[in-house]
């Protein structure tokens, strides 16, 4: 469709444009730029293409154009759909990223856990990553940074001191987080992401560029792509899944059911009529049958099996 241009030429053309647009150039620079364009047809072609690029923006104009682009980007349906697709892209994505960084060989891995599966991973710098069931992450260590992308689920990160002093970043659908020597938990919850800091501190940068917040040891919060909620004291039982148990303290039955549905195959749901009942106790994650029976014993609830894999908690 169009002749390929050497990227070096394109970059020169960009450098000229940026210099001229900066408004800080001497009068003779304009003629120097014209001279550069006349030197070679490729130079001129690169220049024209950048003109055409800017022309697209000019055709749209400010106001409505701006409102549309920003509105579409924050469209919740689109964000949800693209996030779900990102997981699929990531599954085959490592090769693509590796090609882009051909100068350095980065350390890359896509890690997934299925239903009922929890995993521990030792990171290249000796840090540790714990994955709860139903979790998807990419790990990307380059010479510049250590990066973990959380697409879905829940992780617990223990960072290690890095001899190369690279920054440690986490990306989620809602924004970026920078670890400041820490142990912390991160959980993806649709529109919101939860972070609980057990040691050190974590800096939260919502996606839209609004101000970063630092969450200190002993605090947890939720954030969206545009705001960080007021932090609250950490509930230490939040990380009990790492020990293979769920510690519930006055937990809503709906939340309890959601936790266990990550740990077992099939459908596990909770009737709205009993969703607000509260439950306390310690339940083994790998034995959901036992946990369900325990619920039936302590609450006015019965466990209905439509099939072995279709289970509903309903009022007695």
């Amino acid at each position, binding site marked *: 469709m169009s002749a390929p241009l050497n990227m070096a030429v394109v970059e020169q053309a960009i450098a000229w444009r940026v210099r001229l647009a*900066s408004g800080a150039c001497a009068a003779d620079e304009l003629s120097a730029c014209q001279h550069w364009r006349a030197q070679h047809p490729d130079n001129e072609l690169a220049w024209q293409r950048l003109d055409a690029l800017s022309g697209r923006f000019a055709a*749209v104009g400010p106001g409505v154009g701006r409102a549309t682009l920003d509105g*579409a980007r924050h469209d919740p349906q689109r964000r949800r759909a693209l996030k779900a697709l990102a997981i699929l892209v990531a599954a085959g994505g490592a090769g693509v990223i590796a090609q882009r960084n051909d100068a350095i060989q980065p350390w890359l891995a896509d890690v997934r856990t299925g239903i009922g599966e929890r995993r521990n991973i030792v990171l290249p710098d000796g840090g540790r990553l714990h994955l709860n069931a139903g979790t998807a992450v990419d790990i990307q260590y380059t010479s510049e940074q250590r990066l973990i992308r959380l697409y879905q689920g829940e992780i617990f990160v223990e960072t290690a001191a890095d001899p190369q002093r690279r920054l440690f970043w986490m990306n989620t659908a809602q924004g970026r987080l920078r670890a400041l020597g820490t142990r912390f938990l991160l959980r993806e919850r649709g529109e919101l992401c939860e972070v609980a800091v057990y040691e050190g501190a974590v800096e939260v940068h919502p996606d839209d560029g609004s101000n970063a917040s630092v969450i200190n040891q002993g605090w947890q919060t939720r954030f969206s792509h545009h705001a960080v909620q007021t932090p609250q004291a950490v509930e230490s039982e939040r990380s009990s899944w790492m020990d293979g148990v769920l510690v519930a303290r006055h937990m809503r039955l709906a939340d309890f059911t959601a936790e266990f549905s990550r740990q077992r195959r099939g459908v596990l749901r909770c009737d709205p009529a009993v969703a607000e009942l509260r439950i306390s106790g310690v339940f083994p994650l790998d034995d959901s049958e036992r946990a369900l029976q325990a619920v039936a014993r302590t609450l006015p609830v019965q466990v209905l099996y439509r099939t072995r894999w279709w289970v509903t908690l309903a009022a007695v």
Partner: protein
Amino acid sequence: MPAHSAFSSFLTALYHDHHRWLNGWLRQRTDCPHNAADLAQDTFVRVLLQRESKELREPRAFLATIARGLLVDHYRRASLERAYLDALAVLPEPEVPSPESRALVLETLIEIDRLLDGLKPRVREAFLLSQLDGLTYGQIAERMGLSLSSIQQYMTLAFSHCYKALYS
């Protein structure tokens, strides 16, 4: 034409073996079954247009790759249509563009949105302030609380990113 018939039997087999699967795959990822059916159809049209019967070790992965691109476009288009209508709704009557120019602007917006994909929010913001809102680099630096050289860096990044999206 033997080449043609080889291709059409390749396509027929691909359709026969995987059409239902693709439909189901798409239905899980779209809001409505009609969209899923349309997108499945479009996926096979893309294969048809490629006119290349390759040995496919993973035919479903191949179809899913094409379908995924179409899905991303589908959600992009839908979100821009909604946002554009929202933006037009608050315009005073005389400023509302004609239907033809609306269609043209919408197509351009979809293209711009695609070009900006993958840019960091700050870089995107700086680039839009310059290209769309017509601010000078100095004004952008002031507005975003950054140095002029940062803005220059952002612009360089954004131009290069958009160029690659358009031409490579």
